[in-house]
C-alpha cells in the first residue's frame, strides 16, 4: 500500500479542498469536518482512487455532495442558535468578505455549489453537472440565477456566465 503516495496526495490536496469547502459552508469547522470525511473515504478506497485520472476531483466530489447533508443539518441548527460574527475561528473576514458570505448564504445551497465550483475552480457547467450528477441545463440555469443574485447583492455588474 502506497502510504507515502497517499500522504503526499493528502497534504497537497487538502488546502485547495478546504478553500472550496470553507467558501461553500462559510465556516472553517465545517470545511475541516468535510475534508476529514472525504479524505477518510479516499484512504479507505485508496487502492482504487489512486488509479483515477483526478483523485483530487474524486475527493472534492465526495465532500461537495456531502456538504448538502451538512447544509440541511446546519440550517436546522442555525434556526435555533445563530453565531454572531464574534467567534473563535482564526480567519478574520473583512467587511467586504462578510458581505460576500452573506450574499452566498442567501443563495439556495444547490446554486451556491454551482457558483463556487464555477468561480473558484473554473469548472464548466458540463463538468459541474457531472460532478453533482445534475442535468447540464439545470446547472446552467442555477449558475445564471446564482450569479445574478450575487451580482445584485454585491452591487457588481452581472456578466454572462462562462459555460
Amino acid at each position, binding site marked *: *500500500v*502506497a*502510504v507515502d503516495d*497517499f*500522504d503526499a496526495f493528502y497534504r497537497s490536496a*487538502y*488546502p485547495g479542498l*478546504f*478553500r*472550496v469547502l*470553507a*467558501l461553500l459552508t*462559510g465556516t472553517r*469547522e465545517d*470545511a*475541516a*469536518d468535510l475534508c*476529514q*470525511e472525504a*479524505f*477518510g473515504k*479516499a*484512504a*479507505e*478506497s*485508496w*487502492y482504487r482512487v*489512486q488509479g483515477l485520472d483526478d483523485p483530487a476531483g474524486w475527493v472534492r466530489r465526495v465532500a461537495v455532495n456531502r456538504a448538502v447533508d451538512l447544509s440541511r*443539518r446546519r440550517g*436546522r*441548527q*442555525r*434556526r*435555533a*442558535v*445563530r*453565531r*454572531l*460574527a*464574534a*467567534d*473563535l475561528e482564526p*480567519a*478574520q*473576514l473583512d467587511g*467586504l*468578505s462578510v458581505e*460576500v*458570505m452573506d450574499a452566498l448564504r442567501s443563495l439556495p445551497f444547490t446554486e451556491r455549489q454551482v*457558483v*463556487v465550483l464555477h*468561480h*473558484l475552480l473554473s469548472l464548466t457547467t458540463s463538468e459541474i453537472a457531472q460532478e453533482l450528477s445534475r442535468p447540464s441545463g439545470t446547472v446552467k440555469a442555477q449558475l445564471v440565477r446564482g*450569479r445574478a443574485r*450575487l*451580482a445584485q447583492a*454585491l452591487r*457588481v*455588474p452581472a*456578466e454572462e456566465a462562462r459555460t
Partner: protein
Amino acid sequence: MTDPITALLNRTADQLAAGVTAPPAAVQPRPHRSTVRRVLLPAAAAAAVVAVAVGAVAVAPSRPAGTTVYSAAGPELGTVAAPRNQGGAEIFDSAAAGGTPTELDLLARVDQDQAAELALVGARTAGQVCVGFGLLPPAVNQGFDRLCTDGDPPPWGEQSLVAVGTGPATEEINGIDLPAAAYGSAPPGARTIELARDGEVIRVDARDAGPDYKHRAYWAAAWDLGGGPTTIRALNADGEEVARTRR
C-alpha cells in the same frame, strides 16, 4: 480580466482559508484485500460513539433525557442522556467517526426563565472531545453550535480565556425565544466569570469540566456580546483575577 464575482469569491476564500495546511497527523490508506487498518485522521472532526468515556459513569441509554448523573471524575455539572433523533446529539455524529453519542456532558448552563434551557454541553470519545452550545434536552429541534478537537487542547482551550457569542433568536419550529448568550472556557481553577460593559456587570459560575477537558472551566451567561465591547474576567475561588479578555 477576472470578472468581479470571481475576484470577490477568491478573495473571501483566501481569507477563510488563511494559514490552512493539512493537519500533521498520520493518515493511512486502507490496504486492498488485506487486514483493514484503522484510518486515522487528524484535526477537528465530529465525535464517535460516547459509550462509556474514560472516568465517566456508565449510563444506560434508556435513562430519561434530562436526568443528570454526577461523577467525581466527570464534569462538575454531571452528564445527561443525549436525545435521540431530535437534531441535538447528531451534531456530534459523523459517518466517518461512526455514531451518535448516547450521553452529553453538561458543562455550563444559562439561567433563564424559559421552558427550554440554553446550555454548553460536551461529548467525549476515544479520540475526540467536542463541545456545543444550544438548547438542553429534552427540548426538541434543538440546535448546537459545536467545536471538536483531539482533546489537547480541549475545545476552546487554545487560549487562556475564551468568549463566544450567539444573538437572540427564536426557535422557529417551537417558537421558543432564546436570549443572546455568551459562553466559553477559562483556565483551570477559575470559579467565576465576570462580564462588564458600561457600568453593567454580571457574574456567573465557571464549572470544572473534568479531566477529559484538562479541567478547563466552562461558563455560559445571558449576555449579548454584540451589544458593544465587553470586558471578561475569570476569577478564582478567592476572587483573584486569573485571566482577562475583551470582546
